[in-house]
């Protein structure tokens, strides 16, 4: 058994390089220990603390990556059971049908909302003109007043209330047509890195009220698509 005196003697005998190595190894062990403790109870740590612990040094970061692989390996080994593909196929068809029905209802709802909106605008226009006629304002004044009424409504408000608020459905439209239309709304430029991605077609529901980053995130859900944004430019890979 090494006594304290002997240990001190051994440490003094170590070269400065060796001492550095020993210190480094001790620090690494402490950092990895801290990582394991954090993983046992992540709720006790803030996001920043978790990031700091995992990225404390290269060894700790590598250890976390290895633990990710070890966990995957465990799931890989434990889940080799056979799957009931018949039941899965049935569940898939049910989901497909419910999605199709949901989509049909959405189409009908969009049609009715559109019809209501158009009839509402028509009714409002007739109502305004009749009111002016009833007050006996001369014809040329009516025209002037009506023009003033419409111009006093800010353009933004009109656009938002009638067109922009409604989600836009792109169904089977090539990306090269769809994305520039969306980009104009956010005042950004679109760059296609390769021609293949230009022809990709999706069914995508664009809500213009969403921010550009949310829209990009939604589009990135399509597995063949990677879109990134830097300042005022969107790049499609």
């Amino acid at each position: 058994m090494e006594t304290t005196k002997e240990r001190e003697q051994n440490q003094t005998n170590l070269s400065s390089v060796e001492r550095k190595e020993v210190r480094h190894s001790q620090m690494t062990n402490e950092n990895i220990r801290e990582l394991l403790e954090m993983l046992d109870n992540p709720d006790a740590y803030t996001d920043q603390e978790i990031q700091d612990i995992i990225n404390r040094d290269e060894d700790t970061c590598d250890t976390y990556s290895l633990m990710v692989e070890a966990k995957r390996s465990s799931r890989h080994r434990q889940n080799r059971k056979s799957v009931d593909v018949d039941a899965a196929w049935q569940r898939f068809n049910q989901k497909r049908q419910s999605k199709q029905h949901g989509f049909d209802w959405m189409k009908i709802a969009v049609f009715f909302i559109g019809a209501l909106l158009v009839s509402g605008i028509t009714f409002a226009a007739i109502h305004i003109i009749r009111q002016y006629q009833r007050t006996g304002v001369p014809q040329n004044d009516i025209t002037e007043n009506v023009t003033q009424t419409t111009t006093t409504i800010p353009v933004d408000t009109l656009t938002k209330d009638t067109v922009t608020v409604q989600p836009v459905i792109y169904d089977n439209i090539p990306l090269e047509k769809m994305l520039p239309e969306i980009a104009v709304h956010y005042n950004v430029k679109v760059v296609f890195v390769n021609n293949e991605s230009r022809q990709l077609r999706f069914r995508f529901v664009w809500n213009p009220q969403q921010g550009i980053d949310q829209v990009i995130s939604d589009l990135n859900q399509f597995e063949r698509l990677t879109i990134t944004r830097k300042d005022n430019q969107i790049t499609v890979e």
Partner: protein
Amino acid sequence: MLEQRILEDLFRRNYSEMNHLAMVLLGDDKEAEDVVQDIFLRVADSDIPPKNDTYLLSAVRNACLNRIRQMKLHDKVKGLMPIEDEVDLQPIDKQFEWLDDIAAYVDGQMDEPHRSIFHLRFDEDLTVSEIARRLGLNPNTSYKYLMQSIQKIKHHLEKH
């Protein structure tokens, strides 16, 4: 829209492997099935079938990585998910070989109590204190053994 017969054939041929990959990456049966179903919904809506079956597996992996990317950091570390985007992804068959290799090393070459500690931590998701209680060890000793288990796997993988 893809012909129903072609779709069913694709589904039956690939579902098990796709579901397994999603399960390995996400660790949740329901989410795994959801990912695979979404991919087949998109395949069903397209006019042409995917070029090959590998394409479907890549689609699963990308969809899973997207889901992981959107998870909260705490949920990622609880499920031992990558916290950064994974770069330099290996082909999927190589990735499975790598996972098989880890499993074979743990069961074939790792000594006790390292092997038991590894299984309790990664198969049963026990904390180090729980492992210590289960094996009648001191918690400090259990930490040391767990660290050593991970180091052993690291050295083994470096050799190969």
